[in-house]
């Protein structure tokens, strides 16, 4: 029994179908619970009630980056071991990642308006996220432009690889270009810089919720892709017959 057995579409459909309802419930509870808990936290002495936005902003930003990493891994698995489910999972993840990036940017802009006095600042972190959004858009556009599914998987896989290198490169180039306003990482391990526990626990719940939500969405979207692929295969077989 190895993990590669799940690369079999039939097995994947069976296992994911059985797990989905439970995962969906857990995702809904954690996401909505985390957000609601965050909404009810007390005000920060400096930021006022805008501190509540962190429970959306940080999990979305975290997922925006991690989803790209997951797409990179899935693309590599496809390019090296040719498992179709892996390529489809990368395809399924991209729109979710784009939405997460959009949420991080939107909540950041809305928060920045009263706090920094501007909707947008060409700060390294903000700029990097904008660039990440461009890469997501290019990746999704390439998937939808190519008709042959295997070629599409190959080409988007190569693009994801090259794009990852350049996204990382841009991250550091941007740092060189402009030093920013954005505060450092929200969840620092260094003592004394930590967020107070009142904010930390709802944030953990919310992050877990976003992660589970992403898992559910990827599974659902991958199942959609498998079904579409199967339908296309059946129709092609009938055409030949």
């Amino acid at each position, binding site marked *: 029994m190895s993990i590669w057995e799940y690369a079999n579409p039939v097995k994947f459909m069976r296992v994911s179908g059985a797990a989905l309802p439970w995962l969906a419930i857990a995702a809904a509870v954690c996401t909505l619970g985390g957000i609601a808990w965050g909404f009810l936290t007390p005000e920060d002495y400096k930021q006022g009630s805008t501190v509540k936005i962190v429970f959306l902003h940080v999990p979305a930003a975290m997922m925006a980056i991690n989803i790209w990493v997951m797409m990179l891994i899935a693309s590599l698995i496809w390019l090296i071991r040719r498992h179709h489910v892996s390529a489809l999972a990368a395809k399924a993840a991209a729109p979710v990642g784009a939405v997460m990036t959009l949420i991080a940017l939107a909540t950041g802009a809305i928060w920045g308006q009263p706090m920094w006095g501007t909707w947008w600042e060409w700060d390294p972190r903000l700029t990097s996220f904008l660039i990440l959004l461009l890469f997501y858009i290019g990746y999704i*556009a390439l998937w939808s*432009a190519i008709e042959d599914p295997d070629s599409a998987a190959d080409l988007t896989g190569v693009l994801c690889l090259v794009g990852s290198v*350049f996204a990382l490169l*841009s991250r550091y180039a941007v740092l060189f270009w402009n030093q920013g306003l954005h505060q450092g990482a929200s969840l620092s391990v260094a003592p004394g810089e930590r967020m107070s526990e009142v904010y930390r626990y709802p944030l953990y719940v919310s992050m877990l919720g976003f992660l589970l939500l992403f898992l559910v969405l990827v599974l659902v979207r991958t199942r959609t892709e498998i079904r579409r692929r199967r339908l296309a295969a059946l129709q092609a077989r009938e055409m030949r017959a």
Partner: protein
Amino acid sequence: MIALLKRDLALATRAGGGFGLAVAFFLILCALVPFGVGPETSALRPIAPGILWVGALLSCLLSLDRIFALDHEDGSLDLLATAPIPLEAVTALKALAHWITTGLPLVVAAPVFGILLHLPGQATGWLIVSLLIGTPALSMLGAFGAAITVGLRRGGLLLSLLVLPLYIPTLIFGTEIIRRGAEGGDPTTPILFLAGITAGVMALVPFAAAAALRVNLR
């Protein structure tokens, strides 16, 4: 391999406008900017490095889809794929031909357009240096984008969408060289970064481009 390069250069010049078109576009772009921001030297001078680099980027983009498209249509790309030279070398040569017909003319023309935008005199040298180091990377990355979109019917727009984000690091370091040069600072650090990016791109991207071409020729 030399023969292939010569053939590509001959094709580009004979097709008409291979050399001239990108430079003409560059000129129009640089001429349009003052209409947008006003003719004052104080307004143009600080943005001149950025305009020149963005202009070079866009001019480079114009002719990218032709790197492989013509050869793909008449089938000579299939012949090249089965030729004794590796496909990686073919893509690198194609990028080189694109650079000679587009990048090099831009480098030569840029100082003249710099005058139009009131670029300070001492920055002109750095403008040439930065473009000379940076434009080969633009051509090579463009060849990668062209290789990915070669089989598509409406690949042009998609090509721009895929390639432009890849140009960001080159653009950042390229303009930084000129800005520091114009202020009389020391541009060694951005020059090294830019050269590093170009070297890395030249070494690695041909493999990605060749892989994409093989998929499209399947």
